[in-house]
């Protein structure tokens, strides 16, 4: 085993870190989310130019064939900067779903175009009544004369307002929670029968609900084979869950050190509040949770290539730890700041918001504990 980054990985980490420090300070971000709609095409161009968007794509689809470790390095740094552009939804979740579905034709082109920044697909899979359950799909696809007709509603499609394509999951057979019978379709903004309701999220990023009312989809826009999308969806979710853990680690790390610095400067009772042992112990607990999270991230990264049951057990275990840690580190970072911590103008509350969203994304602690016990029972 080797837990050190290699030379190329160190360079990658440096380049993302430089981007965050030089181009993504808190004031720039504030302007972006208030006036810029939460997406700057110039930032996306940087992601493409520096190869970050292509890094996780298979070589046969024009990518650099990097592993999830490279993506984790990127996401940890983006997490420190609270970057709101939908890097993870596009370059991880959608990309992995396409890669795992075994694409050809138009969908293969979309996958290849992610790397250059020309395409920004997002996965429209989650539904309100799923609450983390990947196999739960009620959106229905009915076969018609020239293709498919899709009806249903997708929620919290992060990045959808800026997407060029939507990869929509729909049930072509089976009961709502049956892993069999789910298919993936390629749709685009402006398709008839597709309505997008854009939503601002707690962490200032943007998402949409996508409402499909008998949306007509040509037969050629079925991705992969009919009824067999679950494995690809599960693999994509395993990747995205692992990598959102990496993002959380970046956010927690930064929030912890901002708080550490504050404790050294804030004076009450004639001394820095960092002198108070109650606060020292709180910070020590925060560090313990953060480092256990990092340890679990390694475990999840190691398991991503394993058989689904092994992979999902490790991913769930990591997500449970990250959820627990995010709650403690995010909440106590505010607490230790006192009143200033709950103001919108100050940065620390934004880490709390992002960490809360991550805790609830791709299945919360309760869901993953449940999944671990189901997998352990097998």
């Amino acid at each position, binding site marked *: 085993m080797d837990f050190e980054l290699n030379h190329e990985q160190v360079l990658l980490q440096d380049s993302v870190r430089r981007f965050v420090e030089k181009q993504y300070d808190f004031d720039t971000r504030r302007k972006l989310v208030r006036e810029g709609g939460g997406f700057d095409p110039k930032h996306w161009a940087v992601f493409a130019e520096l190869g970050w968007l292509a890094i996780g794509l298979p070589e046969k689809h024009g990518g650099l064939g990097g592993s999830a470790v490279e993506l984790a390095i990127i996401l940890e740094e983006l997490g420190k900067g609270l970057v709101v552009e939908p890097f993870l939804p596009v370059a991880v979740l959608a990309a992995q779903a396409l890669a795992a579905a075994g694409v050809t034709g138009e969908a293969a082109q979309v996958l290849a175009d992610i790397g250059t920044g020309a395409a920004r697909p997002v996965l429209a899979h989650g539904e309100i009544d799923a609450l*983390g359950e990947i196999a739960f799909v009620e959106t229905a696809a009915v076969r018609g004369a020239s293709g498919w007709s899709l009806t249903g509603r997708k929620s*919290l499609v992060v990045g959808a307002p800026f997407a060029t394509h939507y990869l929509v999951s729909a049930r072509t057979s089976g009961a709502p929670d049956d892993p069999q019978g789910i298919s993936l379709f390629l749709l685009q903004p402006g398709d008839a029968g597709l309505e997008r309701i854009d939503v601002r999220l707690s962490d200032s990023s943007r998402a949409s609900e996508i409402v499909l009312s008998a949306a007509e989809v040509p037969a050629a826009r079925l991705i992969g084979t009919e009824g067999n999308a679950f494995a690809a969806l599960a693999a994509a979710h395993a990747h995205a869950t692992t990598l959102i853990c990496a993002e959380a680690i970046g956010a927690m790390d930064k929030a912890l050190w901002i708080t550490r610095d504050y404790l050294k400067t804030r004076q009450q009772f004639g001394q820095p509040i960092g002198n108070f042992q109650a606060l020292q112990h709180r910070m020590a607990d925060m560090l313990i949770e953060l480092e256990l999270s990092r340890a679990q991230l390694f475990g999840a990264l190691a398991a991503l290539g394993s058989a689904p049951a092994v992979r999902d057990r490790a991913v769930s275990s990591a997500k449970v730890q990250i959820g627990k840690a995010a709650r403690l580190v995010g909440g106590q970072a505010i607490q230790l700041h006192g009143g200033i911590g709950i103001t919108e103008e100050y940065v620390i509350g934004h880490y709390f918001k992002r960490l809360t969203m991550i805790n609830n994304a791709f299945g919360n602690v309760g869901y993953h504990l449940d999944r671990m016990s189901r997998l352990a029972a097998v």
Partner: protein
Amino acid sequence: MDFDFDPADESFREEVRSFIHDALPADIRERNVRNYHANRADTRRWTTILHERGWSAPSWPVAKGGTGWTPMQQFIFDEENFAAGAPLLETGGLKMIGPVIYTFGTPAQHERFNVPFLRGEISWGQGFSEPGAGSDLASLTTRAERQGDEWVITGHKMWTTNGHYANWLYLLVRTDPTQKQRGLSLILVPADAPGVTISPIIDIGEGHSLNEMFFDEVRVPAENLVGEENKGWTYAKFLLDRERAFSAEIPRNKRNFALLKQIAREARRGGRPLIEDGAFAARLAQLESDLDGLTWMTLRALARQGDSSWDLPVGSILKVRGTELQQTIGEMHVEALGDRGAYVYPEPDFATGEHHWPPGPDYAPGVLADFLYRRAVSIYGGSNEIQRTIIARQYLGL
């Protein structure tokens, strides 16, 4: 010991409930049941309605214009008021400066401030904290200097709740720079006095309740001093003990717990009701048990209110656990809302009621904003760290 409720209290609850049911305007209820910050206009209207019934000061003695209710009756009133979706009465005037005025101030000050306050005409802002004086309040530096028959005030106050609605401010100021606690005085200042600037602070829930206030040589007449010069610290502390039984915010915790159960009944995970999920149901039961413990401790504290031989730091205990419970319930609200727990539902426009809400169930708006704002409850009113220090030092003698 006798753990039965007094039948008189139960009929009192019925009386309060039916009054509020009939008297609370539907539009006020609609706005306040959602946990956005209460608007002054609603609080004022509701205070006026209660005043007509003689109920606008549940915690004051009859001689001062209050109801003369027992602590238990006050608690019942709070519960019913909150459960019905009525705005909270203004705590600053009701529980802080009003009683200080009628206890330590002059009868003229009572006439001038408390009587109109009971009619809903005065709204107070509390100017204690400063940028450099939070937990260590006694280090505050806002200065009041006596010049002839006036006080001249200069300084910077922080975190004034509802300062933007206030027509009067009560400030803790330094009148003797050579002393710490014993150099502080309580002075009343009109919010529109020349030299006062009040500016908003937006919280992470995107709400506006907080403000900062700047005082630039603000002049007020000498008679605006409350009680004696340099006794401000004693006045500021005197009420804390009386209010200790209310520190767990049981009425809020109960209403929010009921909302959590409602969300859990309606939300689905994998198509099945969340409340049928064993692990989630166990967490709900845990919260219910926490709430029971706090409720019984509150009932005990209500029964022993004013008993100075009982020195358990019950206010600190209730504050620590009551605030933690508020935060945990909020977390679970957001969690149970699922995908929609991440959506921002902006506060509706007060005048028109117009709102721009993303899709979601009727109970979703306000949940996220309240969850985020409630990170503050373990910070204000003596942070939970300070409360634990009180328990350890003052009671355990460590």
